[in-house]
């Protein structure tokens, strides 16, 4: 059974999640990918406040397709996360507690996650049409000039995610694969 969680995350909830957990996330998440992360970190470097409340924030690495009239959003699946690795530690130190994306993270991000008690969630890459159904509203926050890369506030309902890396540094990309290979070896013996 998936766990139900709410964003923004509170510290206890974030710390209770474990790599491999299936979760359904509801609440407010912010979108940001390459270009927006660069600008957010430039703000942080100048000591200026971010354009959204970062405490407990969950950031979804997504650049959606444009919404058709009457729809909240277009297709909205995750982008590959390692491109945000240069920026993620800065945001984690400012209070970010959740990141949604797909693919590997670097050791510096995992170290910053452990320090912050933060979680990295995987959404199914390539399943943008399905994931869009969980987005109830999308509102521009800033950086409209970036188009698909602008920061948007999304209200989501039961967004299906998997905990990939937890606040202790457990990593499903390693444990999931190892478990499958162990089972496969056992069957072949």
């Amino acid at each position: 059974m998936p766990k139900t969680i709410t964003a923004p995350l509170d510290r206890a909830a974030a710390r209770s999640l474990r790599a491999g957990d299936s979760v359904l996330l509801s609440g407010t998440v912010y979108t940001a990918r390459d270009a927006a992360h660069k600008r957010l970190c430039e703000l942080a470097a100048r000591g200026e406040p971010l354009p959204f409340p970062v405490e407990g924030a969950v950031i979804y690495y997504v650049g959606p397709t444009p919404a058709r009239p009457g729809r909240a959003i277009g297709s909205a699946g995750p982008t590959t996360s390692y491109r945000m690795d240069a920026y993620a530690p800065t945001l984690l130190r400012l209070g970010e507690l959740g990141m949604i994306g797909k693919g590997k993270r670097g050791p510096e991000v995992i170290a910053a996650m452990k320090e912050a008690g933060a979680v990295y969630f995987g959404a199914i890459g390539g399943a943008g049409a399905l994931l869009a159904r969980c987005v109830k509203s999308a509102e521009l926050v800033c950086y409209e000039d970036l188009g698909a890369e602008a920061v948007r506030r999304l209200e989501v309902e039961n967004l299906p995610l998997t905990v990939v890396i937890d606040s202790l540094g457990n990593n499903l990309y390693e444990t999931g694969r190892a478990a499958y290979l162990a089972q496969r070896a056992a069957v072949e013996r």
Partner: protein
Amino acid sequence: MREIDAAAITEAVARLCIQANTRLPGDVKGAIAAARQAEDWPAAQEILDRIIENGAAGGEVPICQDTGMACVFLEVGQEIHIAGDLTRAVDEGVRRGYAEGFLRKSVVSDPLERVNSGDNTPAMLYTDLVPGERLKITVAPKGFGSENMSRIAMLKPSDGLEGVKAFILDAVEQAGPNPCPPIVVGVGIGGTFDKCALLAKRALLRELDVPNGNPFYAALEEELLEKINALGIGPQGFGGRTTALAVRIETLPTHIAGLPCAVNINCHVARHATEVL
């Protein structure tokens, strides 16, 4: 001499951009369904079910939000005269298709300045002159989650078949969960540095239910698929059998001193749509 109006090319490209991004081709649907049948790891089965559901959810919205760079392959019959500017006609088709289809504009006009071109142009245009008086247009939108995991190596002749296999398997291993597995692995072997990379991309255009016409390479495609699906990466990298749906190999003659090998990875949203004018 048959005349084709550039405006007809624009219309076809626009249609194909929308079709490719919103409807998963039958060969890809079939390959995903077959992989689901063969998958024995419950967590992986669950993800494949979601991916199948997503394929059915397209139409109104694109299957994937990365509606890609528009790779446009033209086979131009030598007996055709095109009335108008061909490159402009293709770009105009991309511009219209991406606007009318509510597709994402994912192109920056300069790789370092990085300002969005706003209309997903220019297309990545490939033209081949062929005998005859037909114009075949294939649009294959290419997402960059998988494109970024692609590689090329100028291997030595002494590396041989084993070197080629090792390079391909290493490319898939290094890519791991990043390119949205299950993936399609396009392989180019031979030619020159640039032709080899193009071969790997062209390999991705071959239908997933059509093996290489050469029995040796058809067997190599099968062998590599089996080896890739023994890596355990699995759908989304969470573990499982289904790391790849297919391996597609294309080859060219090459130089006595060289053995180029390129791997162009595609995700499970392996989009392509074709029309013949």
